């Protein structure tokens, strides 16, 4: 009986060692971004469904991408988008996505952005287009500002964002 108990104790000890060892060993192998996360706080029905933004996004660690203001007078193939707000807005989102892909991410990694339009009447169009870009409902935080104009004549919308590329997106 004593021998049996001794055996049990040694089995338990091995169990402890097996459970402890892998976690201990994994620590030095952690890469810079490991354990990083981005959490999107769900907004009200109006924020989610109509205005397409999150009231807050929480990031912890990860790679931060500071984007310049993106605007588009022509599309990827050089076709003019002058005077076409919807086309400009869609191309700006596509541009931001392309820039972020060069950084190892995508449009889905944006955590906040400032959207500038030069006519407040474009606001509703903008949020509709933006809504369709995030089918999972994980919208960036956002400010939507009507300005008097942009650096480049003919530009109707400019967006400057910040993205965080992390291990987990919640």
């Amino acid at each position, binding site marked *: 009986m004593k021998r*049996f*108990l001794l055996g*049990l*104790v040694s*089995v*338990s*000890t091995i*169990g*402890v*060692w*097996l*459970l*402890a060892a892998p*976690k*201990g*060993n994994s*620590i*030095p192998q*952690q*890469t*810079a*971004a490991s354990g990083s996360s981005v959490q999107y706080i769900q907004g009200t029905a109006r924020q989610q469904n109509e205005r397409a933004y999150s009231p807050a996004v929480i990031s912890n*660690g*990860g*790679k*931060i*991408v*500071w*984007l*310049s*203001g*993106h605007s588009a007078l022509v599309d990827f193939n050089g076709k003019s988008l002058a005077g076409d707000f919807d086309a400009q807005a869609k191309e700006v989102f596509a541009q931001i996505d392309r*820039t*972020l892909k*060069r*950084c190892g991410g995508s449009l889905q990694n944006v955590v906040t952005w*400032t959207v*500038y339009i030069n006519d407040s009447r474009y606001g509703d169009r903008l949020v509709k287009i933006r809504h369709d870009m995030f089918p999972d409902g994980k919208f960036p935080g956002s400010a939507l*500002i009507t*300005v*008097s*104009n*942009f*650096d480049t004549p003919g530009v109707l919308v*400019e967006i*400057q964002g*910040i993205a965080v590329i992390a291990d987990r997106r919640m």
Partner: protein
Amino acid sequence: MSGRKESKMGASPMNRVLAGLMVVLGLAAGLLVAPGSAFPPPQAMPSFSIQYLEGTQEQKNRATSPAVITEGARVIWLAGQSGGGSPGNFAAQAKSVFDRMQVTLNQSGASLKNLVSLKVFIKADPGNSADLVKLLQEIFPDGKYPASSVVTVAYAGSLIEIQGVAVVGN
């Protein structure tokens, strides 16, 4: 003979319960020990890195990077800084904005070189953006520009206001 066997069989469930208990205890001990101090703790922050994404010729002409990527940085979030003095002189006011940002950044152990993102608000006037680009080229002669946006807003005293974000290594 059969009675003896019976009694042995009777003891067996007891042992099994004992063994079960020991295994459970072992598992619990393992779980408790694993995140503990037996192994060195992970590094608090990954090492600092910064990368400037190369822009198109147009972006270079506008003295902006399309994106700046940072990791493991200490982030300095600056308030909007407006230009002072020199009424009506855009170039002088723009210079004073950066002088003031420099003072604030120095207090935080950083300098203008650490700026990664700029939101620039200016009064619309011919020549203002050209003056701004010239100044940015002087401040960042190596072409490592912050990612910027420039919009024109309703005139409110100062001809220029800039809100910046800087990052420094730990």
